[in-house]
């Protein structure tokens, strides 16, 4: 990270390419490096036009620096600006270092913890960080934490990707010809990256956040006479019934939402709706079975993590506790929605 003068000069270049970055400064905050308003009484304005978004398949490492592989479709000089941006403010500032510390921490977890996490679909070291080409693997992890889907492409959004995440913040404004964040901010400028739950936010991004939603972990369970496969995960439109698939003699439930602190009656309602045509399933009872299995798995992880010292132990314990808290937000159901014939997604 350079001086304030360097920062402003750098933003001037960004503006020259068509971007906007007004009333913001990069500095250390509660979540590490982030963006803050220079004058909190005035709105910030960040905008990356579509032309400056960089598809992730057009990125590569050159001399340990993240660069645009082919910059022919970008304005003259943008490739060089992007390289300096990554060195001074993003990948080179603390991005690589943070990813490395987190991945090494995960990889160094005791075998029972790794087995548990693998068993519930949270983490598999062999796939995620095999250590065969460390720099490339770190770059891939870094990109995963910084990119966004835009017009069927996964892209990096310079400057805006410096913003930190808060579950209660607004999402990116993607309504125009680019991606923006604007408005008044008392403290750090924060944005909601995506729909997720606490444990997946931690494993995906390396930090804890009290997410308002709770999705299931992955496992199989016997529900009455029916084998049920629960595919865990989030990152989907949460207020819609989850996907259901019949595979051989198993029912596959895809990413069931189990809790929502803002709409606590919706999770059970949505599962009941999703399972309506399945005669072998008592959806309400299955909802509780899935909850039980999630609690058991998280408690087991906490047990295994009890004596683990260091940052990763603390991060994971907090993640499990945040997840247990998030999963607790469910009570009752919306009978009014269940009596409707066509599926709708009204949340209360």
């Amino acid at each position: 990270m350079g001086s304030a003068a360097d920062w402003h000069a750098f933003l001037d270049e960004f503006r020259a390419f068509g971007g906007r970055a007004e009333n913001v400064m990069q500095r250390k905050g509660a979540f590490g490096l982030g963006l803050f308003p220079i004058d909190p009484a005035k709105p910030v304005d960040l905008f990356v036009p579509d032309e400056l978004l960089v598809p992730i398949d057009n990125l590569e490492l050159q001399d340990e620096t993240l660069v645009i592989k082919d910059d022919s479709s970008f304005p003259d000089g943008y490739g060089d600006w992007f390289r300096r941006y990554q060195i001074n403010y993003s990948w080179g500032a603390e991005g690589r270092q943070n990813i490395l510390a987190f991945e090494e921490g995960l990889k160094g977890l005791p075998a029972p913890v790794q087995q548990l996490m693998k068993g519930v679909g949270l983490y598999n070291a062999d796939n995620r960080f095999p250590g065969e080409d460390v720099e490339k693997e770190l770059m891939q992890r870094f990109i995963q934490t910084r990119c966004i889907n835009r017009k069927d492409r996964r892209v990096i959004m310079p400057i805006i990707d410096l913003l930190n995440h808060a579950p209660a913040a607004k999402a990116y404004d993607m309504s125009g010809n680019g991606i923006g964040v604007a408005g008044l901010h008392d403290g750090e400028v924060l944005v909601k990256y995506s729909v997720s739950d606490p444990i997946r936010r931690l494993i995906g991004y390396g930090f804890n956040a009290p997410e308002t939603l709770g999705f299931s972990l992955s496992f199989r369970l016997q529900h009455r006479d029916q084998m049920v496969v629960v595919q865990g995960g989030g990152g989907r439109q949460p207020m819609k019934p989850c996907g259901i698939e019949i595979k051989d003699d198993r029912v596959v439930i895809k990413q069931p939402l189990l809790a929502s602190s803002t709409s606590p009656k919706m999770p059970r309602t949505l599962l009941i709706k999703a399972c309506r045509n399945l005669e072998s399933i008592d959806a309400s009872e299955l909802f509780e079975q899935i909850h039980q299995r999630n609690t058991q798995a998280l408690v087991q992880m906490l047990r295994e993590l009890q004596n683990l010292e260091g940052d990763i132990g603390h991060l994971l314990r907090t993640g499990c506790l945040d997840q247990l808290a998030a999963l607790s937000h469910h009570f009752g159901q919306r009978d009014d929605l269940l009596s409707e014939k066509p599926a709708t997604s009204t949340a209360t």
Partner: protein
Amino acid sequence: MEEFRSYGGRAENVVQRDGPFGRGLFPIDPSQPIDLMVPRSLLVPAENVELQNGAAVIKDDSAFPNGYADWFRRYQDSLSWGAEGELSVTRFETGLRNLPNNVGELLSQLNLYQPEHRLAGKTFQHSMLRRFLKSRCLSRRGKLVVMPMVELVNHSPKATNWEIRPDGSVGVSGHHDGEVLVKYSNADPLRRLLGFGFNVQEPLGFSLSLNIRHRGQLVEVKGGGGRHWFQPPVIEEDNKRLVIEQPLLGCQDHPRMPLTLFLSAFQSANRSDGQELFERIHQANTLALVELLRRLDAVPDEIASLLRLGCMNQLSSLSHHIGHRAELLSRLGDEITRVNSSIGPDEPWDNPPV
């Protein structure tokens, strides 16, 4: 043992030694049955036990056989209070007292730990003796009694209860492959820990004490266990608040029963919001336990470690609730009467078959 037998007690085929739960009783010959029995005449009311020069003795021995009080003093000194009882209860209570303020406050708020009640003796050592006796006594007709020899048996939630015979004697008998174990009482993991000083994965989970607001009404949940679980919780309602006493929230062996019992209580009170409130009480319990674990996370003491494990065991026990038995709701009263009559009013609370 010979002396104990001479007073009318029985202690056959058992020896005291260290096991996985600390000191306990083991069969000398596992192929033979053990037989432990304290006659009613040798049960000592806890209020008749006091400290004399640091030893636990019978205050007034006029109701006991000649020499029994001296035997009891030597028994306490060498096998019970003086063996490791005082040491372990003191270590546990001192640990609780030294927990960080924010942990103590939350435990107190949840009615899990009230130092003013636990340490109410005239000296700390007197309080320790009372705590110790509470963890070793059996409740008989509203009175706590000390059961010499039999109280040396450790607890397992899977074991059977003490045998209480028609003549008032208390015992344990039968074949035991390993350590002789009994089920002390119905409790959940956190209350077992706070009451007895050890962790065990109890199959039941009762609510903590907490207040919640449900559909605009204040709901006071009185937490606890130690009751016969196969009963709907008592609920009382006035225009301002609803009071629910000791709701059972989780039951590993009968996961449909907690909600069934809860709904039964609500049905009797002509309320239809039982299921939603059951879930809200669960939610409040989870959030309280998670908060307790957060506050304990960086605390390095042995007691903090015990409490963390207790909270995790509690979360696990509370998770055992799935659906309910709709067909049982209409005839639950008859079922309860039938089960309760088979237990007998004077027996310790046990898990009946459901």
